[in-house]
């Protein structure tokens, strides 16, 4: 549609109720003037991104330690007692530091209940997955642990964040693995470790917020566990930690320059004071 020549004094207005001498497809220089970009956007600096990413790698390390203990138990290696002992010691120290033992009786009661019921029910695990092949159990456990890592809360709310899904997936994976152990004592040890690693540890992490300390200790611990299994797995673990802790955060910081959220009068209004 040909642009009509209009007198200079006639000014285009963004209204429909006035008869206009401009053609219907006329585009004024003020077009898209009301557009706003990245209104609620708070850029994250490199330091913050690197620091926050340690939360993810810490959880990966915890999961790796759990798997390492399972493999040690499965192979009948005595090292599992050391790994288990160190992890339990860290949890107890963290509990003491977080002043949760102000009233020790309810805590001891819960611990006793868990040990009694848990140990009593552990023999059932042996027959629980008899009809399922070991390969299927391993595959299922890997998937469940990945679900646990993916859905974990990491101290924030998001679309794919669900602490319930995360915890259930981890415990379910732990039960699957425990059912493949020969001794009741071993199966029970693995379940208690699962509760410590996937239920207690994240809570303590939030309370204490010792980000760097937890990251250093657990990454080192997980690496040692991996080395004891195989060099290849240790290298793969280090590679994944390197990606999660360095490559991905830096990519994220770099990608922020391309963030382009558009806001304008067409957006659905938000209701505040209802």
């Amino acid at each position: 549609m040909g642009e009509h020549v209009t007198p200079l004094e006639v000014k285009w207005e963004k209204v429909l109720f006035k008869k206009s001498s401009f053609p219907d497809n006329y585009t004024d220089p003020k077009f898209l003037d009301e557009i706003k970009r990245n209104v609620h956007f708070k850029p994250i600096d490199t330091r913050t991104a690197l620091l926050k990413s340690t939360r993810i790698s810490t959880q990966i390390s915890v999961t790796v330690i759990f798997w390492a203990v399972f493999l040690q138990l499965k192979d009948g290696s005595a090292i599992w007692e050391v790994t288990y002992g160190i992890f339990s010691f860290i949890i107890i120290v963290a509990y003491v530091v977080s002043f949760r033992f102000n009233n020790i009786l309810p805590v001891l009661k819960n611990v006793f209940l868990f040990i009694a019921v848990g140990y009593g029910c552990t023999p059932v695990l042996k027959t629980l997955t008899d009809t399922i092949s070991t390969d299927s159990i391993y595959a299922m456990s890997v998937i469940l642990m990945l679900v646990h890592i993916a859905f974990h809360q990491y101290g924030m709310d998001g679309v794919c964040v669900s602490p319930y899904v995360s915890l259930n997936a981890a415990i379910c994976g732990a039960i699957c693995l425990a059912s493949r152990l020969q001794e009741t004592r071993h199966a029970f040890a693995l379940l208690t470790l699962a509760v410590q690693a996937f239920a207690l540890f994240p809570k303590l992490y939030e309370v204490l917020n010792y980000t760097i300390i937890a990251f250093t200790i657990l990454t080192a611990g997980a690496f040692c566990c991996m080395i004891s299994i195989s060099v290849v797995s240790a290298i793969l673990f280090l590679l994944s930690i390197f990606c999660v802790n360095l490559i991905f955060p830096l990519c994220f910081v770099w990608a922020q320059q391309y963030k382009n959220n558009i806001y304008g009068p067409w957006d659905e209004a938000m209701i505040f004071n209802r």
Partner: protein
Amino acid sequence: MRHVICMVSDFFYPNLGGVESHIFTLSQCLITLGHKVIVITHSYGNRVGVRYMTNGLKVYYLPIKTMHDQVVLPTLFASLSIFRNIYIRECVEIVHGHSAFSTLAHEGIVIARLLGLKAVFTDHSLNGFADISAILTNKLLEITLSGVNHCICVSHTGKENTVLRAKVPANHVSVIPNATDTTLFKPDVTKKETDQIIIVALSRLVYRKGIDLLASVIPIICKKYPKVHFLIGGDGPKRLVLEQVREREGLHERVSLLGALDQSEVHGTLLRGHIFLNTSLTEAYCIAIVEAAACGLQVVSTKVGGIPEVLPPEMIRMAQPDVSAIVSALDDAIDSHLKGTCMSPWECHQFIHRTYNWVDIATRTQLVYDDVKQQPSLSVGKLLCRYRNCGPVAGPFFVLIFTICHILLQFFEWLYPRHLIDIAPDYNNEKGL
């Protein structure tokens, strides 16, 4: 220049709404201007096949089942044959699709372009950019609009929105507002209560129409003004919220929930009111406020979307979409009513009659058709190149789909050549008009 136009949309009579009435009235006006117009929509219940409406407006109700919210399942391939047949039978020159949410409109336009016909698209709504559904809808719209000859929006805000979300060049988009039949919306002061102030709200009772805001405003206004009564027309999931407020505040005598209104009941309901309240959270144009103004009501509305463009400041009080601002605007309107300082109902009516009449809208749409008809035809290759530029993933994917469509159309041309398809007689020529 006489055109043969085919309106395509999922939304049409017997369904009632803004898009439906727009298509029907625009078609009627275009027929009056001497053009041939047909409508393609999907079946509604047992309304399947060809039906004739006022002035011989021919409507094809395609035997396609709806998927969700009166929209058909997007298949494209399944519709190819029937669309081709109709376009050839009716000698269609321009296909005019309506509404970004209409699957049928998207399919109709794509098939028309592959057949070498001209295409125009009217976007009646606003859409965001952030959520998943918006991203998918916008990508589909971008694909469709990359092939159309021209686009129409009902407000300048709508144009901005469409240009951004569908990446259409701004000069390919015309702004032609909606209109209303003012003969159906005339003021009548004798119908109004003199001892009460009646606030009317007519809309679908859904979240995006701001029913939560309305529910918060009602008790505050009722407490402030003992003479104020609310008439609320419409139905939807948010009706429960209004019923709860009415129950909790004991406002059964002062808040009437009329339920879903028939088109014929709207005028009568508006005539009973003094103030029209619109609390929409997003709106491209809002025909309801135009109809209310035509009936001489004072209009109070949220300042969202294209609403600030529709009525002049002396005819509307706009408020930010929050409770206190709406209450303040209503205070102002009630005060103006009590003092008698508001614009006279007939002045309002005359203004709407002059500004938003269908003859003007149809004439402006006709200019778009004239321009579109003069544009050179695109070869299928060039058309596919346009689609290819719609993104690194979506582009090639849709090129593949449309290439298959093109091959199927060639197959249909061989199987059922166009010279074997009977040309439908023109209703108006038959009648000797």
